[in-house]
């Protein structure tokens, strides 16, 4: 017999009450969803593999079909909240096997996606932030170092040529031509190197992790805005990482909301049951997490920030193949970063002597 409890447990939008932290589970579901929508689940058959073992897997198409089937089963199971930790491990491992089996499939963005799934599977509610921090230190540290050691990056030659072959290349070339030599491109080039080192440093210092998470969103969204490209999975996976690093409440927060309010729409959208909703007797809106509570705009911002379905909607619309220009996603991300910087970051950094929204459990 199917009970409401069973249905709630298998709710694909659910993020609370599993072995994974709420932010970690949401990140895994968002990335898996994009992977499916964009057809990346098709993976690959072996082609110039990095390990000799993949030369002996038998029929290449059978190998590919097995990878696809295992990945899809793990994805469906993840959305049904059955053994989410194991599902994440399988999702990441299958992508990693595919990457090792084909030089043509291997990209940095798919490597990061595979690692993100695997690291989420290895995380607990206590260790998630530390594990993701360490991964981001490695990622941005080596990305910045590679640029710093490359002559083309230091001189601006790479930056000038790379931007000139983009859709906006003519505009860039004319703008760069206003300045002497390669000074314009070299300045921007060094700016990128500096930003990536700053990103690394922000994750080295635990107190600066919220700043780093917002910088990740702003930096990759600026790349999306300028180029119009998400670089396949990079934008989705790194923004999902930043979402996982947000201070998610340990349990669904309680919302007391007035009858006539746009917050009612958010209640209607709360398919994940991520809040406990209660009609207010007066006109005030409030949000309570443990022994902390917020009212008015501070409550509104936190309800939006911790509303999983809003992230699902944005990710699905952005990843949709019918959506060739994805720059609106960058604009939305800039707005989110600006609001979070004003409304959430000071509390996170304890600048206003306000405790974080909740402590991690």
């Amino acid at each position, binding site marked *: 017999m199917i009970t409401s409890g069973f249905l709630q447990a298998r709710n694909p939008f659910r993020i609370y009450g599993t072995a994974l932290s709420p932010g970690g589970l949401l990140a895994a579901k968002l990335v898996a969803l994009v992977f499916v929508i964009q057809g990346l689940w098709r993976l690959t058959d072996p082609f110039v593999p990095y390990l000799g073992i993949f030369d002996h897997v038998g029929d290449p198409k059978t190998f590919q079909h097995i990878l696809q089937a295992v990945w899809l089963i793990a994805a469906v199971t993840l959305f049904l909240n059955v053994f989410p930790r194991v599902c994440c491990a399988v999702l990441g491992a299958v992508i990693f096997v595919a990457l090792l089996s084909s030089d043509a499939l*291997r990209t940095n963005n798919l490597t990061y996606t595979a690692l993100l799934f*695997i*690291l989420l599977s290895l995380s607990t509610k206590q260790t998630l932030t530390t594990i993701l921090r360490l991964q981001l230190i490695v990622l941005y540290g*080596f990305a910045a170092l590679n640029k710093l050691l490359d002559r083309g990056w230091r001189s601006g030659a790479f930056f000038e*040529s790379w931007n000139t072959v983009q859709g906006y290349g003519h505009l860039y070339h004319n703008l760069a031509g206003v300045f002497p030599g390669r000074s314009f491109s070299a300045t921007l080039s060094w700016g990128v190197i500096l930003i990536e080192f700053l990103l690394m440093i922000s994750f080295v210092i635990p107190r600066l992790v919220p700043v780093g998470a917002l910088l990740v969103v702003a930096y990759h969204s600026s790349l999306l805005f300028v180029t119009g490209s998400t670089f396949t999975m990079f934008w989705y996976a790194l923004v999902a990482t930043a979402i996982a690093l947000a201070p998610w409440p340990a349990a669904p927060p309680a919302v007391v909301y007035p009858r006539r309010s746009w917050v009612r729409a958010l209640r209607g959208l709360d398919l994940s049951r991520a809040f406990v909703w209660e009609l207010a007797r007066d006109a005030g809106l409030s949000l309570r997490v443990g022994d902390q509570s917020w009212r008015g705009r501070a409550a509104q911002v936190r309800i939006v920030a911790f509303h999983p379905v809003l992230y699902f909607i944005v990710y699905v619309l952005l990843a949709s193949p019918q959506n060739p220009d994805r720059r609106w996603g960058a604009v939305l991300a800039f707005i989110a970063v600006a609001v979070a910087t004003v409304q959430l970051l000071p509390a996170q950094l304890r600048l206003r002597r306000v405790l974080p929204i909740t402590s991690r459990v």
Partner: protein
Amino acid sequence: MSVRAAVVGVLLAAQCGVAVWQHLGSTRYFAWAPNDYLMTYNLQVRVGERQLTPEEMSQRYRLSLTELLTPRMRSELSLAADERYVWQDPPSEVKDRIRKVEKRRSNGPPADVLLRYQLDAGPLRTWRWP
């Protein structure tokens, strides 16, 4: 230390090890260097007496041979007139790919490959296989 923490440690250490190792050579496999290079190139492959079409070369090497370079771009960057394609990883990785594909092909006549390329719009270089 838990098993999970140990696995995380191994994964992070492996990434650092591979990245440092890759920096000793000219490739950047699994080394966190996303889209850090701009190689503009042209590829010509002759098998026996026949010149392969872009579609055939694309299938043979699984390279994305979409022509992204316009005459304007070639002119602004002083690229060679016959350069058509773009690769955003080190040139050694394209050469590696072609070399490995050709070494694995046991049947059919051998291929003569001519790769002409520029890195970051620098000097024009030529690479041949075999």
